[in-house]
């Protein structure tokens, strides 16, 4: 490693998307002077510049901003606070001793940090990950790649489109493609419910009369050079295609909006323990991972529905990293947090018994008039009622010190009616 220029720095933030920007701003405001953001692309803001639709910022600014507008507010603040960043820079490795090795246009650097914030975001699942049978023609894109081509590079991806997966990006791209003159023949969803926000069903699909086929999937891709058609099929309760019910849709393009995976290769290699459910790090209430001084926030920790929650989470990570660097004493008795019946996950994974805090929860199935209970062993500590729950909508629940003081474990469960 002798080719690397060594430098000491208090805080390294990996990733210059919404999470990295908010984490850096928050850390700086809490007193961390010497920090740097490392960004792989040649811009700040991550995915936001290509998300030209509006609806960002309703929670934090009470107005529906577009992605680039939302990003610019934080980029402006980064500049006002004089926070340094390096673009076109790739983190090669991080170590448990908090060395960060990077390749940048200015050369190879090794930062010895006091704390690190992981804010690398997520990447899209691809065709290979769900093993769609058929040929391998051009014209199969992930929704985010199509969004980048259309909204940033002025490249139209196709004329007759089928979209697999009803995540938000899939629905938003259905509208975008329609506005740009393509015909979207169907949005096909494996599950019996959509995977995105309900308002996108209205303003992206219903508004443009785009058919939404729930409990359906693509079972084959046809075409030699370019996609010529796809076979779709309804699925049974076990999500298996029903034989004999297949239908062919003539199209030249298939878009995939089939989920996002936290991009944790760097974290894994430095020994950060990951959750097999979220794909993100296991963290405590300070968003500190299993490696002391390494924090995680945003979509690399858990995939969020709206960017506002990414920002809020990242601000907490920035504050925690600042406290770690500036030496605020912490850690008391820990409470392990678990997901029980009907709950996909609860985050953080362990909490202290001496502070108020907020949990992020996702349920497994949609439901109405649902109660979520929190148990310490057999004892019901707290219940909270919801008029509506949906796997695509993260639930936030506040716990107070009075509720957590005397307990040893905490398990969240959907209560049977």
């Amino acid at each position, binding site marked *: 490693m002798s080719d690397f220029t060594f430098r000491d720095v208090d805080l390294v933030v990996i990733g210059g998307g919404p999470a990295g920007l908010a984490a850096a701003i928050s850390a700086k405001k809490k007193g961390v002077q010497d920090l740097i953001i490392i960004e792989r692309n040649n811009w700040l803001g991550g995915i936001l*510049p290509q998300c*030209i*639709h*509006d*609806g960002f910022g*309703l*929670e934090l600014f009470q107005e*529906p901003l*577009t992605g*680039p*507008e939302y990003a*610019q507010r934080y980029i402006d603040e980064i500049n006002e606070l004089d926070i340094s960043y390096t673009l076109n820079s790739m983190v090669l490795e991080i170590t448990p001793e908090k060395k960060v090795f990077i390749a940048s246009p200015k050369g190879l650097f090794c930062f010895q940090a006091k704390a690190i914030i992981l804010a690398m975001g997520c990447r899209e699942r691809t065709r290979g990950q769900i093993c769609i049978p058929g040929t391998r023609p051009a014209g199969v894109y992930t929704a985010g790649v199509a969004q980048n081509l*259309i*909204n*940033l*590079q*002025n490249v139209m991806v196709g004329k007759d489109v089928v979209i697999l997966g009803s995540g938000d990006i899939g629905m938003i791209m259905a509208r975008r493609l329609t*506005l*740009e003159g393509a015909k979207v023949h169907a949005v096909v969803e494996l599950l019996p419910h959509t995977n995105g*926000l*309900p*308002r*996108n*069903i*209205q*303003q992206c699909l*219903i*508004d443009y009369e785009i058919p939404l086929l729930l409990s359906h999937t693509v079972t084959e891709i046809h075409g030699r050079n370019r996609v010529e058609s796809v076979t779709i099929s309804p699925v049974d309760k076990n999500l298996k295609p029903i034989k004999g019910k297949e239908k062919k849709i003539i199209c030249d393009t298939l878009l995939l909006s089939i989920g996002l995976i936290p991009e944790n290769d760097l974290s894994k290699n430095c020994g950060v323990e990951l959750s097999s459910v979220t794909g993100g790090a296991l963290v405590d209430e300070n968003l500190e991972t299993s490696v002391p001084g390494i924090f995680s926030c945003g979509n690399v920790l858990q995939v969020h*529905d*709206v960017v506002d929650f990414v920002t809020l989470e990242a601000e907490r990570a920035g504050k925690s990293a600042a406290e770690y660097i500036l030496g605020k004493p912490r850690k008391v008795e820990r409470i392990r947090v678990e997901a029980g019946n009907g709950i996909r996950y609860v985050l953080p994974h362990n909490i202290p018994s001496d502070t108020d805090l907020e949990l992020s929860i996702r349920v497994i199935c949609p439901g109405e008039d649902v109660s979520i209970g929190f148990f310490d062993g057999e004892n019901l500590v707290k219940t909270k009622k919801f*008029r509506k729950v949906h796997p695509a*909508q993260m639930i936030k629940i506040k716990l107070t010190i009075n509720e957590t003081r005397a307990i040893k474990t905490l398990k969240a469960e959907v209560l049977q009616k």
Partner: protein
Amino acid sequence: MKKEMICVGCPMGCYLSVDYVGETIRGVTGNRCRVGLEHAEKECFNPERTLTTTVNVQGGNLPLVSVRTSKPIPKNRIFEAMALLAKVEIEAPVKIGEEIIHNIFDTNVSVVATKNIVKKD
């Protein structure tokens, strides 16, 4: 008359059921806040949407600048607005918030840039 819709006012996405006669709302159910009521009324009689799209840029670091209508415009004029914007071409640099089209379709709504485009070096 009954009309079912999903409120687009915020990420909650309430499923609204609107009961109306002629131009009068008799009742809205399913909304969790005031935004839902206002949306239901608009949606029944005068549906509007904010349009976000892109406009061609000459000489910029990107070939397109993202734009939006400053306020929602009538839903039935969205494709007309797209056709109009497809013909627009502007010169870099572009500043976020800059007006690209003034008073589109005499609706008192302008089309504004939503990002900065710098000159290509």
